């Protein structure tokens, strides 16, 4: 018995996709509504932790790949840095995509506006999600206090 039992497990099956898509909504609308990269990433990490708690450590060990999460966290940081360096011809963190950008300079209030902000939000969301899930997995795997 490593998991939370039938009722919690069945409801986790239904709610984990909902938490995931809600976190994606917060991340992708970070420039329009309250929330953003960290809040949305922490929300999605909540789905991962719900999976870990409801299904148990054995199941989570099979599904959560350490190398993949480590690589995705690095990619998130690199994408953030890349978006910041796009306007390096003027200044670091110069929002070139907003002033001259091909697609991300739409009407303020629409989804594709605000220049590099959506990209940075997605990068931070990915980094926070993978980082928090990796940290919680590492803590859950640390089981030497009784042996």
């Amino acid at each position, binding site marked *: 018995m490593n998991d939370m039992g039938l*009722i919690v497990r*069945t*409801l986790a099956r239904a709610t984990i*996709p909902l938490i*995931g898509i809600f976190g*994606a*909504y917060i991340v992708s609308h970070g420039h329009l509504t309250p929330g953003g990269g960290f809040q949305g990433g922490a929300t999605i990490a909540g789905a991962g932790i719900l999976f870990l708690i409801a*299904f148990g450590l054995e199941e989570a060990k099979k599904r959560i790949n350490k190398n993949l999460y480590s690589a995705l966290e690095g990619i998130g940081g690199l994408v953030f840095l890349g978006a910041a360096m796009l306007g390096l011809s003027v200044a670091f963190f110069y929002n070139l995509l907003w002033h001259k950008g091909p697609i991300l300079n739409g009407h303020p209030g629409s*989804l594709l506006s605000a220049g590099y902000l959506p990209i940075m939000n997605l990068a931070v969301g990915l980094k926070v999600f993978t980082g928090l899930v990796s940290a919680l997995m590492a803590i859950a795997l640390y089981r030497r206090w009784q042996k």
Partner: protein
Amino acid sequence: MSFIAAFVWSYIFWLVLTVGSKGLLWSTQELIAGLIFSTIVGYATRGIIGDRAIRFLNPMKWILAVAYTPVLFWGMVKANFDVAYRVITGKIRPGIVRVPVNLENDAQYAILSNSITLTPGTLTVDACPEEKVLYVHWINIPKGLEWPENSEPVSGPFEKWARRLGE
């Protein structure tokens, strides 16, 4: 198949979240972003949502769920007044009873357990599909019903509804 179930389930929730982005409907950007994010979420959770979750996309199930709502709501109203009566008078006889149920799959157990917990006065403590029983904490066990034969005295018509909703 389970990817489709997770994808549709996520996309419906995305549409609910972003309604009103163009007048009262959805702008094209939101629809396309929803497709992308739902694909990612659906792919990531395809192994979690379960192999048979696709059956909940059947429209007949949704009609049944809508029909179940007033039944559940009426049960909640009745049970709330009953609990208010027990709070005032203090006439309680609490205990945990073993309720045999005739259900097959996880979804039916989850629906019935949550319905029992939502109606005050009864609280599902554990569901054991191996023994086909629920353990229910009951605030006022009527005399002689300490070992109920089926779930009818505990939950009323909910077991029949749960069986049809989850099959």
